């Protein structure tokens, strides 16, 4: 974690004029709060949202479990702290500022003790309007920091609690400004990130209030916890489903450059947050995808996939790559040209993912390969002759269902030519024969037997290729050997018309009255 804070307050100034004492005190206070905050950033725990059925609690650490009694006490203390804050704000005499900060700090501490802060009690006691007042322009940094911290934790809970922050949003956004004390800006970004994480409705409110540009600017520096918090908040803000925010983000001056810089050089934690931003940029916005494809992004994503072993990082990086391949035909046609070093690099890292123990990596890497295999004949040849195929064949017989389905897409795509204008793809006999000889047919027939409509369809389509395309009319025999007829006959009276017609059509054509007679 980069230390960009003011230096230790242990040094004594040489001059001891009143001005310096005040300045020193101000910075001391801000440093203390800033430090506490930085520490808490490092330790920010994940808050599990309880699902509608009441389950979904991630078992926390033992001392985070709050008993009923403790909870009751906490609520009472919280209400009391809000009352204290109220009177502190009303007070206008000597030491008013310190009173306010102390009251805020007390409330903040109550709200930061555990993963389940007494938010309801705070809201009931009327905390929000008070906190909004504490955010007014010109307030001391310490005050802004504590108020934003309270709001952050209030927003970290249930949907209606997050929504309660509505009155505070314009001020939180304003304090992201370039003149703000950095820890203040960061804490506001954190609060806003929680709000954006709630849902589409709040996201739209934030966007309409101009939250995006200042958050984007906070991503521009090279390092610091602020950059990471801003990236995380942005990933929540642009996640759609409306692509407008993603498109707006990529257009921010210097942002593409910052993204590339972070992907290239930053530590894994920061790179992870930035990668999630890229995930949403590439999944939602065609414009952003185009911009990214033309930049060095793919190269940098490949680098990260090659060098990192952190699942947290690999998932969004792999997915970004997948989105860029899926979202823009230029990726495979102009960047990932077969024979170029970058293309070999991509295949290599995808193979690395196929070899990993992680289900998500295997599944999504297969998906990416299937899209590359949907490219030109040269792409198909490239994959066909790579290390990927033996791995895919093994996965087709042994992996969990969702992985097998993606693998099926890859293998099938390798066996047909690119879809031409007339929509009638031809077979690539060499690939088909080789793959069938290496035993992939049974895997496809298993898919036909699955309950998943899409998977069954894939299986039947592949069977059709085999029946049609194996030389010497070997297709039907091979299918029969693998109990393919049986699998197809299950669909004879199946409720799904499409599958029924497909299966019956194949049986009629290849296993009709004359089948077996010529043997």
């Amino acid at each position: 974690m980069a230390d960009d804070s003011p230096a230790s307050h242990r040094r004594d100034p040489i001059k001891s004029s009143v001005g310096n004492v005040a300045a020193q005190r101000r910075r001391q206070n801000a440093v203390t709060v800033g430090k506490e905050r930085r520490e808490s950033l490092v330790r920010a725990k994940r808050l599990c949202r309880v699902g509608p059925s009441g389950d979904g609690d991630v078992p926390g650490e033992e001392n985070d479990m709050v008993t009923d009694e403790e909870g009751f006490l906490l609520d009472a203390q919280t209400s009391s702290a809000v009352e204290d804050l109220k009177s502190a704000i009303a007070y206008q005499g000597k030491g008013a500022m310190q009173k306010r900060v102390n009251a805020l700090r007390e409330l903040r501490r109550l709200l930061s003790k555990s993963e389940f802060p007494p938010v309801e009690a705070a809201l009931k006691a009327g905390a929000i309007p008070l906190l909004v007042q504490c955010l007014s322009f010109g307030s001391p940094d310490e005050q802004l920091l504590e108020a934003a911290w309270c709001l952050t934790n209030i927003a970290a809970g249930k949907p209606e609690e997050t929504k309660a922050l509505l009155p505070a949003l314009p001020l939180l956004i304003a304090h992201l400004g370039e003149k703000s004390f950095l820890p203040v800006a960061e804490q506001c970004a954190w609060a806003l990130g929680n709000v954006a994480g709630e849902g589409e409705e709040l996201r739209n409110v934030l966007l309409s209030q101009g939250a995006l540009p200042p958050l984007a600017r906070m991503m521009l520096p090279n390092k610091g916890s602020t950059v990471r918090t801003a990236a995380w908040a942005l990933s929540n803000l642009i996640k759609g489903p409306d692509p407008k925010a993603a498109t707006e983000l990529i257009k921010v001056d210097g942002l593409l450059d910052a993204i590339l810089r972070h992907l290239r050089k930053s530590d894994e934690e920061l790179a992870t947050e930035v990668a999630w931003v890229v995930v949403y940029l590439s999944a939602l916005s065609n414009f952003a995808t185009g911009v990214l494809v033309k930049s060095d992004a793919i190269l940098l994503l490949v680098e990260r996939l090659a060098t990192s072993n952190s699942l947290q990082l690999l998932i969004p990086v792999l997915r970004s790559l997948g989105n860029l391949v899926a979202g823009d035909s230029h990726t495979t046609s102009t960047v990932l040209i077969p024979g170029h070093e970058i293309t070999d690099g991509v295949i290599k890292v995808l193979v690395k993912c196929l070899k990993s123990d992680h289900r998500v990596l295997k599944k999504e890497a297969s998906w990416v390969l299937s899209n590359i295999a949907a490219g030109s004949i040269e792409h198909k040849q490239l994959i066909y002759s790579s290390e990927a195929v033996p791995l895919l064949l093994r996965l087709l017989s042994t992996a969990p269902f969702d992985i097998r389905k993606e693998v099926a897409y890859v293998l099938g795509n390798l066996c047909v030519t690119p879809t031409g204008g007339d929509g009638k793809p031809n077979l690539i006999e060499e690939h088909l024969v080789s793959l069938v000889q290496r035993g992939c047919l049974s895997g496809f027939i298993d898919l036909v037997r699955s309950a998943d409509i899409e998977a069954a369809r894939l299986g039947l389509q592949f069977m059709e290729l085999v029946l049609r395309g194996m030389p010497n009319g070997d297709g039907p025999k091979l299918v029969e050997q693998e109990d393919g007829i049986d699998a197809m006959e299950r669909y004879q009276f199946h409720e799904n018309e499409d599958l029924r017609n497909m299966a019956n059509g194949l049986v009629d054509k290849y296993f009709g009255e004359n089948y077996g007679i010529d043997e």
Partner: protein
Amino acid sequence: MAMVVDYKHDSSFPYWTSIRRRFAPDSPFFSSGNIERELLAKQVALDFTEDERNQLEKMIDTDARGVFCPIVGCGARLTLLEDFEDHYNTRHTASCSVCSRVYPTSRLLSIHISEAHDSFFQAKVARGYAMYECLVEGCDLKFKNYKGRQQHLVDKHKFPTSFEFFKKAHPSKKQRLKNQRKRAVNKKDEEVPSKMEVENEMMEGLVSAVSKLSTSDSSPSTVSFGRRNARGLTFVPRSIQPPLQKK
């Protein structure tokens, strides 16, 4: 590499075609990879225990050779603590030299100055020009009066109705003068002029310290240590007279 071309395509069978498949970010396709990420959709900022804090104290680096300015994007390095105050005042505060209100962005400051202190601005308003800018960056709409802009913020940008860009200072000038005179009479009363509420109140301790030193009757709130006047006329539009000294 041989290809097989089938001339007898049965048009009713949906043949295998290789196409790119794209998924939306919230597609179920991605849900297994999203599980952990969803847990991070919201994050609580927690406190440390005493022990943990002590441990971290030891780990945290302190740069003995000076301070880095903590303001976003600045990165200036200052060798002495007291230099920081000067640096901060000259480079980072967006404070109004007329009324000392502070804003988090230069843009908001300049909007404030136009609207609150610029008679040229008021003249144009009086003649019916739309001068009040929308506060949201990038919106660019302008309105003929404060209320119209306010309504726009509420309607279009979902600002709360309680939001006020221009907050009147408490208490009124009359009241402050009263307080001033009261203080002159009663030296024991060290109440800080409430005008200070408008600016950074860290100055509060400062002024009371000065007032203790002073031999005069009133504790002048014009005492400023660089915070207000250092950049004096920089932000003031040419049409404004230098401000009368405050009470």
